[in-house]
């Protein structure tokens, strides 16, 4: 059961990584990257390193994604932030 769950997680990790590369819109890529970090959090917890899981959840899924989004807004790469 655990092995199957771990395999599922690793498979979805790979799918997330590939689809973040393949996605055309930068916003979608950032959101997929945050999902990747969230899956990674569960994997850290399963590997019995809860401190890394907390850090990954706060930094990977939270702060890094927000910094990416702010940068995208700053360089006008998001929809609706372009100067008309």
């Amino acid at each position, binding site marked *: 059961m655990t092995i199957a769950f771990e395999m599922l997680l690793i498979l979805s990790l790979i799918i997330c990584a590939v689809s973040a590369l393949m996605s055309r819109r930068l916003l979608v890529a950032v959101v997929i990257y945050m999902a990747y970090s969230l899956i990674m959090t569960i994997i850290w917890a399963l590997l019995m390193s809860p*401190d890394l899981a*907390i850090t990954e959840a706060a930094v990977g899924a*939270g702060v890094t994604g927000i910094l990416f989004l702010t940068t995208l*807004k700053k360089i006008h790469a998001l929809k609706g932030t372009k100067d008309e």
Partner: protein
Amino acid sequence: MKKDMWKRFSAWVNGTSEERGPLELPDTAVHHEKKKLFELSDEQKIRLFKAGYLAVAAVVCLAVVSVLLYTVFQLPLFGDPNNPAVNDVVERYVEKGLEETGAVNMVAGMIIDYRSFDNFVESSVLFLAVTSVMMLLLRDKNNISREEDIQEEHERIIEKEASDLILQKVVSMVLPCIMLFGVYVVLNGHISPGGGFSGGAVMGAGLILYASAFGTDKVRELFNMKTFKTVTSTALLCYAASKAYSFYTGANGLHTGIPLGTPGAIFSSGLILVLDICVGMVVACTMYGFYVLFARGEI
């Protein structure tokens, strides 16, 4: 000569150096007179370039992936007792760690007591990073144009008038839990999983959430540039002073006079609690500082 150079340097830093006129380049237009017999059209060239680009990308990708996979298969097995990482150092940590540091959480005992110098330099790296971001992105009267000023004013109005009610309600319910969890993780770093960096990151993420729901002006009532500077530099100096004291006494074979307490209690394990709080402060401030400097250009 020297004074002139200094003047030019300061003008360059402040962005007030006089504008240069457009460079006068010689006429580089080349006139093709003869036409080759077998010349590719532009469309064919683009198609050829695209195909070549894809092929090279695939080859490079496969090469990197195979090298990485080969390296992974050369790694020792996970959790094998004969691994090279399992040596005298780890043995010492596991056997004497609790006795020497007083921390139940062995990871905290390792990174904040045995290897606290590493952790100090990591906090300094964060501080340096936020300082560089500040140098690049902080708004002042010399690096801001009129248009950017107007845009900033628009952002401020949008932030104030078009705030999201759902986000605000959710944040006002969730934020106390986030901040409490962050404080808990920092203060219990030597007892349970976590520590300064994780707890500080959680608190910084909470501050960012609050700022994005209620606007940075609201946060500035509590947390402005002055508090940012005071908290980060005080925390780093406190870390440096307490670790300098313990290095000094340790190197001279003196007794530190800091009680280790009973393992498992909140006031135990010597300096680890103080250092955890320092690291947590620095990390929370820098996380929020990054966000607010990227988003608004001021703290």
